[in-house]
């Protein structure tokens, strides 16, 4: 086995898409080399051309519109870009495999998972009959699926997201590929499952020498996993270096800004480096460096010539003409932290939301999804409380129950310590509607495509706090300015705005009724890092100016570390730990919190630090485990945990935990 054997060598790759008679280049000369057992990460924001690069290698781009405009991709000396279909089919799936982002749609729902693995085996190997079946089960056990023989007979919908991604990997591995292309393989998964999948990939590289081309936007993940990193921007690689070097000494201004735009504990009290503007569209004509319009260090030269990728330090390539000055850091503005008040604004007591599970036509609900089950929470005025947890733990339901989009089945929601809004009938609820507002996760579905932005923003205001027409105009203009939108935005339609701008519109709509609480439901998770930074900065500014309290629902601990004053960690409908951010991140008391923190890739700390791996996945909320709900996955569980639900116990000032062993 030759350690340094080159598997894939891409040179000057140019891929474009036909638009009328013109061809817009999405990839403008990309080159990299992958060696045996190496993990090369291609990172960049959306629109950088990283996925197009990967798809073009396997000939997966739509034939009708995509054009390979130049370059070559030599896989063991053969040029992948110029292979005919039959030759490419022999390589695809057997010697190069691909894993996709969405494990829900990549599997055929009407075939058993075993059948889907067998299909690939039969296509590429001589195995038939029982041998194929045995190999399929072997593969399933290799990717860490428990009881592989039984699981093999199941259909995709019977598996969880993490399991499906494992099956996808099993299919990709079926023929022992030399190269695995993973396009955002863990983006749709929870952090604990992401850690499991990345561990599996690391094992493959160690044991089989499989090379991995990892495509992702998650810099923290890359920092912990990849050997080499290629940073892409607008179709070009702007920086290529070993991971350790890139993260300690980034040279290109884009890389540098990108890293500073990632929220973390260290970034608290500073404004995140938000890169103004957006990635240029492939059709935009920019003669020079494509980053120049957004670059704080750009000089007139930058806009004239395209900078070549040059080796600035050993094995560290950068495409920037100003690399001499690059060592000087891009400065960040600091913002003083303010003391927050202690006055409770919103108190949630024993909140319960059950969803009936109905089966059959006349069936009455006999089972319930315990989405939220006995949740206590206090939100103080002007503070940011982060609600953290994995998917299906019920955190979104909490948000929706607070603004009464779902009807709580029990418990109290006390506003100002006196008004219980949990069970108010709709007409009595109306005066309280304007107190709590929400910003939604998906910027594309949160605005009515057929209403002008101004109409969307003013809708709630006209309903709950009508203003005379003369004032209304001025108020709308003020709001738009506050959230950093141009004045003419009011008369445009949502599709004319980018994701980040739409989140600004969503914020303006919430602010229009002058609320005292805003529930932010994963409101930055659909955005690119640099745009997320803009929105997080804006949220902080608005809070400082208006004193609005945020309930920030997220699974992203780095955002929490940056933004939140206090953190509440949720597991299966209950809060397991709650406390001030610094305290909780430094001394997590609950085993679940510890596992979450360990599983989340971070931009600070030792990238190779040991991980705590949580076995299995979150159990079904239809039949939540007895006693402590975490006990089936807990490494410290004792018989007591399975029977007695742990009471909340106060560790230090404001830091409570529900665990028998804390």
């Amino acid at each position: 086995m030759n350690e340094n054997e080159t598997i894939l060598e891409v040179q000057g790759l140019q891929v474009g898409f036909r638009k009328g008679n013109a061809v817009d280049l999405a990839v403008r000369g990309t080159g990299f080399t992958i060696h045996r057992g190496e993990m090369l990460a291609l990172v960049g924001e959306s629109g950088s051309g990283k996925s197009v690069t990967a798809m073009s290698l396997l000939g997966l781009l739509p034939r009708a519109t995509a054009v390979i405009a130049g370059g070559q991709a030599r896989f063991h000396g053969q040029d992948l870009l110029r292979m005919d279909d039959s030759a490419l089919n022999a390589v695809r799936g057997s010697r190069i495999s691909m894993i996709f982002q969405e494990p829900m749609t990549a599997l055929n729902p009407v075939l058993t998972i075993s059948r889907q693995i067998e299909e690939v085996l039969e296509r590429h190997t001589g195995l038939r009959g029982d041998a194929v079946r045995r190999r399929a089960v072997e593969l399933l056990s290799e990717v860490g699926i428990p009881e592989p023989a039984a699981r093999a007979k199941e259909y995709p919908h019977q598996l969880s997201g993490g399991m499906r991604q494992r099956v996808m990997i099993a299919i990709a591995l079926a023929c022992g590929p030399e190269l695995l292309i993973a396009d955002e393989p863990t983006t749709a998964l929870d952090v604990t499952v992401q850690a499991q999948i990345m561990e599996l990939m690391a094992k493959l590289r160690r044991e089989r020498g499989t090379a991995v081309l990892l495509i992702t936007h998650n810099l923290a993940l890359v920092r912990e996993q990849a050997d080499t990193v290629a940073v892409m921007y607008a179709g070009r690689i702007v920086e290529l270096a070993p991971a350790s070097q890139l993260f300690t000494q980034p040279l290109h201004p884009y890389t540098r800004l990108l890293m500073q735009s990632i929220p973390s504990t260290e970034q608290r009290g500073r404004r995140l480096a938000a890169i103004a503007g957006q990635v240029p569209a492939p059709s935009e004509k920019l003669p020079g460096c494509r980053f120049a319009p957004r670059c704080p260090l750009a000089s007139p030269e930058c806009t004239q010539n395209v900078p070549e990728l040059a080796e600035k330090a050993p094995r560290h390539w950068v495409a920037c003409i100003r690399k001499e000055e690059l060592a000087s850091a891009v400065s960040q503005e600091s913002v003083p932290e303010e003391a927050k008040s202690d006055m409770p604004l919103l108190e949630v007591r024993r909140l319960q939301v059950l969803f009936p599970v109905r089966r059959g036509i006349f069936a009455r609900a006999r089972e319930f999804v315990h989405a939220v089950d006995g949740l206590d929470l206090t939100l103080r005025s002007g503070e940011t409380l982060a609600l953290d947890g994995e998917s299906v733990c019920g955190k979104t339901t909490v948000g929706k129950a607070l603004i009464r989009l779902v009807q709580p089945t029990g418990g109290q929601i006390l506003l100002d310590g006196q008004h219980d809004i949990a069970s108010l009938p709709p007409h009595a609820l109306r005066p309280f509607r304007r107190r709590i507002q929400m910003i939604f996760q998906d910027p594309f579905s949160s605005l009515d495509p057929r209403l002008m932005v101004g109409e969307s923003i003013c809708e709630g205001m006209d309903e709950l706090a009508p203003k005379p027409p003369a004032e209304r105009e001025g108020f709308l203009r003020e709001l738009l300015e506050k959230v950093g939108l141009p004045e003419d935005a009011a008369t445009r339609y949502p599709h004319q705005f980018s994701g980040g701008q739409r989140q600004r519109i969503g914020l303006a709509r919430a602010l229009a009724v002058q609320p005292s609480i805003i529930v932010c439901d994963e409101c930055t998770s659909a955005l690119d890092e640099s745009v997320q930074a803009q929105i997080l900065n804006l949220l902080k500014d608005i809070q400082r100016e208006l004193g609005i309290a945020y309930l920030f629902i997220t699974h992203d601990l780095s955002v929490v570390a940056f933004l939140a004053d206090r953190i509440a960690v949720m597991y299966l409908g209950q809060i397991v730990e709650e406390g001030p951010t610094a305290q909780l991140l430094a001394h997590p008391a609950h085993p679940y919190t510890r596992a979450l923190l360990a599983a989340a890739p971070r931009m600070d700390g030792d990238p190779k630090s040991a991980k705590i791996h949580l076995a299995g996945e979150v159990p079904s909320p239809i039949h939540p485990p007895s006693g402590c709900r975490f006990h089936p996955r807990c490494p410290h569980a004792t018989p007591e945990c399975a029977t007695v639900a742990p009471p909340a116990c106060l560790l230090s000032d404001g830091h409570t935990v529900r665990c028998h062993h804390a």
Partner: protein
Amino acid sequence: MTTQTLGHIFRSWPCQNAIVALLLVFTAAFLWKLSRREYWRLAARELRSRKGAMVCAAILCLYASIAVLDSVGWRSPAIDPTTGNIIRVNGHVVLDEGRSVLDRLLQPLANRREKTYSAPLGTVQFTKSTVKGRDGRMHRVNEPLAFPRSHLLGTDMIGQDVLLQALKSIRTGLIIGLLTTLLAVPFALLFGLCGGYYGGWVDDVVQYFCTVLSSIPNVLLIAALMVVWGQGLPQLCVAMGIASWTGLCRLLRGETMRLREADFVSAATAQGVPGWKILLRHILPNVLHIVLINLVLRFSSEVLAEAALTYLGMGVGAGTMSWGTMINDARTELTRNPVIWWKLCAAFTFMLGLVLPANIFGDAVRDALDPRMRTQ
């Protein structure tokens, strides 16, 4: 007796003309009202910028104006057949039974009666007849036409001009298409939106109703209704409307259920916007494209269904000309040798001339109503 009198008044020309005038005024007022809204004005501007759509709109207008002309009554003074003078009673002119304006305009065409079939622009009859020649022997010849080269689309079995029939059928086709749709769409919208949005028992009721209605075969349902109400154009439209709204209703219910979960609906709810306003402002405009597509698609199927029902003897009835009856007639003509094709072709061409522009125009309207599809 009173119902009969009422029916008589309803069918009288003054009443019919009043209805036509009311409809025209109502449509104009509706369009004027829409044109004052920004959303619709932008849509109209977008629509005008599409040449193909405007051509189709012109064709549709032509069809519509023919139908309107065919709906407006016209009574001329009655003429005494024996003397050829206008009849007067006590000095007042007596009016005749009355016909539509279109009938009057097409009078020259109607007057050119032949004896039987003739090919388009033909000079002789299509069928041979036995004629006694000068030599006293019987000959089988194609007799010359009374009006040679004047029948653009030929004549039918009783020598009527086919073009005239096709033109007269436009009103029937449009009425069937529009009236059926106008009956079905509000039902489908009301039940579909309410069922989808409110869910719970409202949805259950709508669903059971839909399921029951759609489990009865359409033709059977229409037949039953026609037996109760008797044959006629309005009855047919109502029966077809009742039989056909369930499909659209289900479609709208599904789409509404999807939209109800959309974040912008949640946002509106959280901002205290009442349910009916959400339905009107957020959900209705976002399902309108489905209604439009459905409207255009059902237009053609409605006209075809009329033909099928005519074949089963449950159509508009013998007195009314329609593309359905034309196609029904063509059934026997097609089995002859040589084939008599022009009646079928005429009906087909006129239907295509209506349905195809309607489809293209409908598509363009749908795109123009969607801000995401606008080019400007």
